[in-house]
């Protein structure tokens, strides 16, 4: 329970800090850089290193490369779709998470899955 609480607080602080930093800047596309900030990753990897050691955190960081590539496909595809087709923005943003999941699964199958 204590570990969950610490994770919750540290994660909340990191995410809020990066998001606030993004709120400060104009234009919007520059502020958008902070939407791709490694806030959850930084909080998680610090806590994992302290509780489970560097080797465990290194495995997570390697997998994160696949997740980050999927995030690139997600934001780029989302940007293209909204620009070209429009639609209900929040619904489109939510539905495109399927693309992230597909790419992340692909990264696992092609690269990360233990042979």
């Amino acid at each position, binding site marked *: 329970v204590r570990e969950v609480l610490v994770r919750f607080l540290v994660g909340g602080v990191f995410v809020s800090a990066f998001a606030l930093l993004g709120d400060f800047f104009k234009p919007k596309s520059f502020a958008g850089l902070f939407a791709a900030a490694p806030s959850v990753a930084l909080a998680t990897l610090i806590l994992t290193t302290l509780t489970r050691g560097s080797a465990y955190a290194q495995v997570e960081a390697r997998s994160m490369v696949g997740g*980050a590539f999927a995030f690139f496909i997600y934001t780029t595809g989302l940007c293209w779709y909204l620009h070209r087709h429009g639609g209900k923005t929040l619904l489109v943003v939510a539905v495109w998470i399927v693309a992230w999941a597909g790419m992340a699964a692909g990264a696992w199958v092609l690269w990360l899955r233990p042979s």
Partner: protein
Amino acid sequence: VKIEVDMTPIRQTRWTGHLRRFLVGGLVTVATGLVARAFGPVIGGLFLAFPAIFPVGVAMIQKLENQKVGPGTRGDHARRATVAEAAGASMGSAGLLAFALTAWLASGSVDMLVALGIASGLWAVVAVTVWTTRRYLMSS
């Protein structure tokens, strides 16, 4: 295009908006830890780049932008702001990739916490460089 510091969105955002981001950030971090515990660090690591915060940011942008304009142009204005945010996030994901690669590769030779420090610095440098380069190419 000049990069400006603007305090208005922070003043306009209600405290519930900031609280929502804190809660989502905390919950996602907990969930990532639980996924790693249940399925191992290989699958857990993928979720370190899960786009959970992005939709919350978009919801806040929608609310702020819709408040600024009249009912007639509500959807369009907010959509344009979201496209700009997504374009920025797309460029920022190059930084996210640099962060992950650095944390993974550098932790083999230096302490993991030092590697994370280097990776964070590199995230900022790569993200800003990609954004500036794209702006330069678009204006020339």
